[in-house]
């Protein structure tokens, strides 16, 4: 248990905890807020913190950005950060914008049909529609 309490241990993991905290703020917005726009912003926050987590795994202290000198003569004493997470996250950012835009388009359509972008109001309206349909069916039965 003693190793969990040393300051080195805590400092070495503080970055992960920081990103997890940000992630949880995003998750809270997505779950607890009923406004659709806010949900999408929360999703973006969540997403960006995952990116930061990945990039922080690729960092090497004392290293530098993985860009070689123009003459391609690599100095073996220089350490470079890991370029692989950067590549993966570049792809992920673009995919993230694609999903965001799709969500926004859905939001526009929802607003067109329900005249609101609040989730609980949409739920109320759907319940009313359902109840009225049930009522109609009963009348037909009679």
């Amino acid at each position, binding site marked *: 248990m003693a190793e969990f309490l040393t300051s*080195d241990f805590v400092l*070495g*993991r503080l*970055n*992960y905890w920081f990103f*997890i*905290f940000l992630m*949880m*703020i*995003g*998750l*809270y917005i997505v*779950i*607890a*807020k*009923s*406004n659709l*726009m*806010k949900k999408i*912003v929360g999703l*973006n926050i969540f997403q*960006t913190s995952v*990116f*930061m987590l990945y*990039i922080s*795994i*690729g960092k*090497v*202290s004392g*290293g*530098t950005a*993985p*860009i*070689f000198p123009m003459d*391609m003569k*690599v100095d073996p004493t220089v350490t470079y*950060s*890991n*370029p*692989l*997470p*950067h*590549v*993966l*996250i*570049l*792809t992920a*950012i*673009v*995919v993230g914008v*694609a999903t*965001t*835009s*799709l969500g*926004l*388009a*859905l939001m*526009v*359509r929802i607003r067109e049909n329900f005249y*609101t972008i609040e989730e609980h109001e949409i739920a109320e309206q759907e319940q009313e529609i359902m109840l009225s349909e049930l009522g109609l069916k009963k009348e037909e039965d009679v």
Partner: protein
Amino acid sequence: MLIVTALSVVVTRSLFAIVTLSGVFSLLSALLFVRMHAVDVAFTEAAVGAGISTVLMLGTLALTSRSERSDKKPQIAPLFLVVLTGALLIYGTLDMPDFGAPDTPAQTHVGPDYIERIPKEIDVPNAVTAILASYRGYDTLGETAVVFTAGIGVLLLMSGLARRRKEDEEDEGGSS
């Protein structure tokens, strides 16, 4: 500062302010990416996250409403769920290597291999570009497919928006 920005998104009501804050969040995270030696990611995040996303959201706001309607009072269940998830994730990090340590599994297998081979095999000074376009070209192909699908989806959802609006207005004019 990132935390302050994210928390203010939770409490702010005006959607316009929220969208602006999300842009600020993206720019701050781009700064953080530069600090962690990921300059390419920082470029993309600043251009795409802070630029295009914000513009898209503002466009959506123009088509929908400007401010959040009054919320129900905050419930305890989501907060509990979020704290639980966070605690589990933090428990998971206890086994993670130290921040920036050079001898972790992530740094000892694929990464150095790429850095060794790129100057010999591909004559591109930027390692990220070399991997993206050459070693992991399939990722970009898949990404293009995703963006294409999303584009089709958005077009299908939004098509005929102006036409339907006009019809609505005519209906209202006719009935009154």
